[in-house]
């Protein structure tokens, strides 16, 4: 069982995530009133959620991988 290299992958992924989020904090982003396009339902990370769910179910039963996909985020940023 290859748990050690697997944990290695996990920690590397974590480090990558930390780097990405710290980069994000400084240079990227928009003002609250500039979220018109991002507020569009088709621009949400969960757009086409029903399609994604169907696909995930199909691929789970035909292939060896599943999951890992997302959560929401982005959007209008209201309230």
């Amino acid at each position, binding site marked *: 069982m290859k748990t050690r290299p697997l944990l290695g992958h996990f920690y590397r992924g974590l480090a990558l995530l930390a780097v*990405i989020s710290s980069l994000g904090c400084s240079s990227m982003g928009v003002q609250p009133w500039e979220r018109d396009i991002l507020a569009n339902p088709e621009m949400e990370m969960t757009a086409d959620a029903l399609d994604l769910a169907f696909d995930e179910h199909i691929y789970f039963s035909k292939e060896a991988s599943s999951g890992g996909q997302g959560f929401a985020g982005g959007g209008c940023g209201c309230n």
Partner: protein
Amino acid sequence: MKPSKKKSFGKISGLLSAATCSLLGTTSGHADEWDIDSAILIYSEKDRVSAVEPVVSMKKDLNETDTLSMKITLDTLTGSSATGAVPSSQVQTFTRPSGKGEYTAKANELPLDDTFKDGRGQFSMNWDKAVDRNNRRNLGFSFSKEYDFLSLSGNGSWTHEMNQKNTSITGGINLELDTIDPVGGAPEPLSTVPYTIGGGSVSGSTIRDGDSKDRQVIDLLLGVTQIIDRTSLFQVNLSYSMADGYMNDPYKMVSIVDTDAANLGEPELNIYESRPDSRAKTSLYGKYKKSLANDDIITASLRIMTDDWGVDSQTLDLTYRWQMDRGYYLQPHLRYYTQSAADFYRYFLLDTDAVPEDVSADYRLGEMDATTFGLKFGKTDRYGNDWSVRFEQYLQTGDGSPSEAIGQLRNQDLYPDVEATIVQVNYSFKW
């Protein structure tokens, strides 16, 4: 066991909805409506499985901070599925998993078990709460039942927003408990499948375990969503999954083939597969969305997965939404998937091989590529109802002539293509 379990980040039981509403202090007679997404999917594999799947998903704001969503999925499956046994130059006869009746594979035909008729019902419920301006909490529960399989899961996640909501970080956990009751009982792994080659009826029986089998899965997810600029954003998720318990497919087998010159490559017997009793997976997922000047949208995602079974996979997904007038759109879709074989995957075993502790000939654990081409057409209406129609064509290919094939196996396709067509219709409305 039909392994087509939906791993959703789930929802709470229906009985609780009324209780939940009162718990959250909402009164009836709220002007808010349910947002309903209904769809039906028709899935058809060439010569194999067919399925029809209606789904209804509903969402409602209970009050200003709480949202309730529920989803019901029904699934009816018919058709046949590859068992992992190899084709022979002669007729092969296998006993059905239930122990009653037999099925045959013609000469030079891949053995397919056609007793595969399954119905599934799934219910999930989700409670999303805005704790304050920058924090959201999500709790959910899911329940899924097939005739040989029961799955219960609970999940929770927390999202924190920062940088004027330009950055959001989500941490989540999902716990799943599965109970498997294979038809006829779970066969003893690596035991012999009652089987005859060259015609004639089958004799013998398998040692079967009448007890239910179970499995627990824990999923951990950490994700970051970042707004890049007014027209684009991306998300990166890291997830870790640990499964323990009964991992076998009780209906799958591995062929042991003859090494004698007389019958070279002919299957002598078949044994039930055996997988490790745990599986740990790590995956890194990234998704990017950009809105173009003409209102078209590009979405691209990549998922890299690795696990302790030796499977490594990459999934690339691209969609281009071509926005037309009055809310109409056309959306082509491309998905490319590739995976390496599990360490214990074998096309077959030789009768001179020592039988390994773990072995499976299930094509879903083999080395393969899969491509999907899709097209979706529909209409969205900000103040009204949406509808869409989606077509997808899936083709999975692997090496059907591996170098280890001997004798008659060289004349066989040991990894036939899996081809499937999907048609889906969606309708969203308020109620």
